[in-house]
């Protein structure tokens, strides 16, 4: 027998498909993954000459050391949560909407138009409602564009939604440098602060946007689980052929769901632009990447709205806490991004183990196997 034929060596390990895990087991697996990520991040921090234990201590304490820190944590979490809820229906439908950022921005732009240019006579509440509607329409339209082209011409939604993010971002720049430039800013390119009647109300010392976020989580949970629309989303996401066979108008479902997805993101943009986090105006940093982080959040949350709350909070804490730790230890602002990256890597990597396990053979068992083989026949 020629040497390759082979394999007279027994492979040291092999990969085996495993029984489907329960939700609890998956949760524990993810916990392990996060733990590994924390340890790996700790090693990295130790390499920079910082005690990892005290670093992580600072991260957690940094989020809760004062009422002010908690408030600023909430300010980080809420837009992230809303943007995450927004992409869930699209992802459930397997429509890869990575344009949450752009839809968020367009919601903010439309709402800003209402805040800045609608007649002064409109009182606070109707104005806020008009701004919300404008935000919903702005985000919705921005999401309908890729949905339309997908349905009509079969274009790739990933590319189109991604590109539209940049267009949205540079629309702000155009408005800031051109038509919406604040003449009172003394030549400095910025958009004017909104009049006070276009400011978001406060409850318990923070914007009421958190109430909207909670309502959205509840709405989305029921919408996906119990309504006909949610059912159609699930079926289209599972198999377009089955959906057609059941008599669903697949294109209509895609367009409707994408409008909803964009509308929620747009509402998030409206809340952001009228809230105190951005000092009540539109700027280039309005979305600050929440549309992208949202994708990570919902993926880690397994597209469940409830779990999304927890994940968004954790990611927000990482962001906020690392910010504090960075200034405490004089580190680069990239540290929090690196830690997020490591967590994502381990958790997504752990998904492999929900379906497979690796079986190792000890050296001994290989030896005994060889010894037990019929004598003289192994070459």
């Amino acid at each position, binding site marked *: *027998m020629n040497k390759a034929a082979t394999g007279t060596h027994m492979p040291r390990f092999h990969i085996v498909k495993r029984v489907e895990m329960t939700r609890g087991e998956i949760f524990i697996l993810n916990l392990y993954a996060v733990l590994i990520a924390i340890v790996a991040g700790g090693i990295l921090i130790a390499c920079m000459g910082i005690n990892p234990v005290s670093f992580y201590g600072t991260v957690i304490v940094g989020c809760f050391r004062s009422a002010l820190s908690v408030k600023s944590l909430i300010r980080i979490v809420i837009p992230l949560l809303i943007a995450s809820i927004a992409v869930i229906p699209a992802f459930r439908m397997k429509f890869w909407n990575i344009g949450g950022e752009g839809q968020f921005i367009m919601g903010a732009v439309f709402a800003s138009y209402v805040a800045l240019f609608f007649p002064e006579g409109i009182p606070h509440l109707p104005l806020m409602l008009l701004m919300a509607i404008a935000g919903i329409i702005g985000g919705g339209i921005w999401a309908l564009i890729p949905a339309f082209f997908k349905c009509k011409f079969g274009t790739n939604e990933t590319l189109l939604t991604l590109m539209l993010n940049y267009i949205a971002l540079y629309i702000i720049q155009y408005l800031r440098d051109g038509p919406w430039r604040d003449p009172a800013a003394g030549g400095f390119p910025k958009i004017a602060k909104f009049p006070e009647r276009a400011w978001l109300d406060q409850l318990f010392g923070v914007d009421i946007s958190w109430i909207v976020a909670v309502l959205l989580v509840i709405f989305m949970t029921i919408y996906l689980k119990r309504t006909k*629309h949610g059912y159609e989303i699930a079926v289209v996401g*599972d198999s377009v052929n089955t959906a057609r*066979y059941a008599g669903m108008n697949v294109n209509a479902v895609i367009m409707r769901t994408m409008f909803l997805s964009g509308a929620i993101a747009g509402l998030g943009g409206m809340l952001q632009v009228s809230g105190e986090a951005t000092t009540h105006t539109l700027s280039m940093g309005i979305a600050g990447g929440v549309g992208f982080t949202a994708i990570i959040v919902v993926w880690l949350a397994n597209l469940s709205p409830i779990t999304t709350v927890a994940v968004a909070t954790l990611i927000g804490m990482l962001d906020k806490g690392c910010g504090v730790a960075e200034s405490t230890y004089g580190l680069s602002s990239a540290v929090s991004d690196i830690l997020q990256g490591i967590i994502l890597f381990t958790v997504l990597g752990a998904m492999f183990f929900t379906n497979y396990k690796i*079986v190792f053979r000890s050296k001994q068992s290989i030896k005994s196997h060889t010894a037990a083989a019929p004598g003289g026949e192994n070459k």
Partner: protein
Amino acid sequence: MPFFRAAQHLFYGRVFVDTVTNVSARGEIAIELRGITKAFGSVIANNNIDLIIRRGEILALLGENGSGKTTLMNMLSGIYHPDSGRIYVNGNEVFIRSPQDATRLGIGMIHQHFKLVDVLTAADNIILGAGKGFLLRRNRFEEARKVAERYGMYIDPEKKIYEMSVSEKQTVEILKVLYRGANILILDEPTAVLTPQETQRLFEILRRMRDDGCAIVIITHKLNEVLEISDRVTILRRGESVATVKTSETNAAKLTEYMVGRPVTLKIERPDTKPTERLLNVYHLTVEDEDGVTRLDDVSFSLRGGEILGVAGVAGSGQKELCETIAGLHPIKKGAILYKKENIEGKTPREIIKLGISMSFIPEDRLGMGLAASLDIADNMMLKSYRDPKSPFTPRKAAEEMAKEVIKKLDIVTSGINQPVRMLSGGNVQKVLLGREIHVNPSVLITAYPVRGLDIGSSYVIYDALNEQKKRGVGVLYIGEDLDVMLELCDRIMVLCHGKVTGILNARTATKEQIGLLMAGATTNERYGEEVVPNE
């Protein structure tokens, strides 16, 4: 075997000397498996299986779907690796870690789904990847022709794969493994896609190869084929090898008993009913696929209430398009489909469902059409009725009731109505689908391959369910694969070939040979049961 050896020297050169020296006297053990176990998660596909494959012999590996036949053979072809157990080839223990390893050991497997490059010629497909240089050689057509002649096969080496019939493609697949020096040949359900005549030709080739000293394994679940072609039979049941017998010393009843584990009557009922009015009239129907290729060509037939009309034909003869067109999923190019007196052209699938036309299509992957695999059984039950309530919410309660009823009626094995369909075994998936279609009380039931991959017990549950519909006066269009079953179950059989109707026969008097000829393209003017009754 001097002849075989000479042939290999002549055409394969020195590269294959190793395998050639291993070819020896007939009856010698080519492969021995000892205690092979393989599990996929909690499913034990093969449990402690021993198997011997001899040279100069055709071994049939018989078992119902899911009994572990293909898994076992995939471990010989290097696709899977056993969790435990030993494999001996020519007396040496081997670890087959890749298909390349298998090729070097002289093992060649013909899979159910062909692995050919469509745009290349037969010769290119045979020669490419055999590890004999990168560039195409000028004499490759000649070389391919010679390999074919050696085994008494005929192919046109310059023909492109996409221009070939299924049977020709299969021949190319076989030549491909032979060209790579295989002398242990494994064929996975090779006759599934062939007409009876093509099956005979394949069997002749296999016999010739056996007489040349090859070891041949044929995986199948068709009893008559086992009895016809094999020398020995090994029967698998639920992942275990239950018996190995000489074919000459057994019969169909005994083999079935081994397969199922209990004695089974192999008689399908055909209740006599009086067909009623014409529910579905198809006139000169022509449809094309997305590429403009004609898939149905001038198809005319009618379906009455209280009858089962079988549709026979080799795979891809237009069955899928026929189903989809009637269900409103495929545009009509020419012709018309009338439900009672109403033209259904231009109606949406939803409107057609409302008329009472129900379709259950079991595609090859079982789940692609008709079911949403990640949703649970109850959610799948309401696929067609979820819009019925006026409220924006889904009728989940009703769906749960319906799921319970269907599970009880069709004996579905499941942990409950909340189990995702994808976790069910194939047979149970099909029962869920058919159960839903029957539950809505249709007046026309289109069912394609409803017993595809089912074990014998489940198949009979489905035949009974269809007969019950027939007795209720439903018109059943049964698109099937197994001619033996169709001849027993159906009232009439329509044969399709390349999208054309080549005949409509009385299933009570038709023979398998007759249908086989029609499947291959012969035509007859017989249109049994289509004549117009005066009072209509």
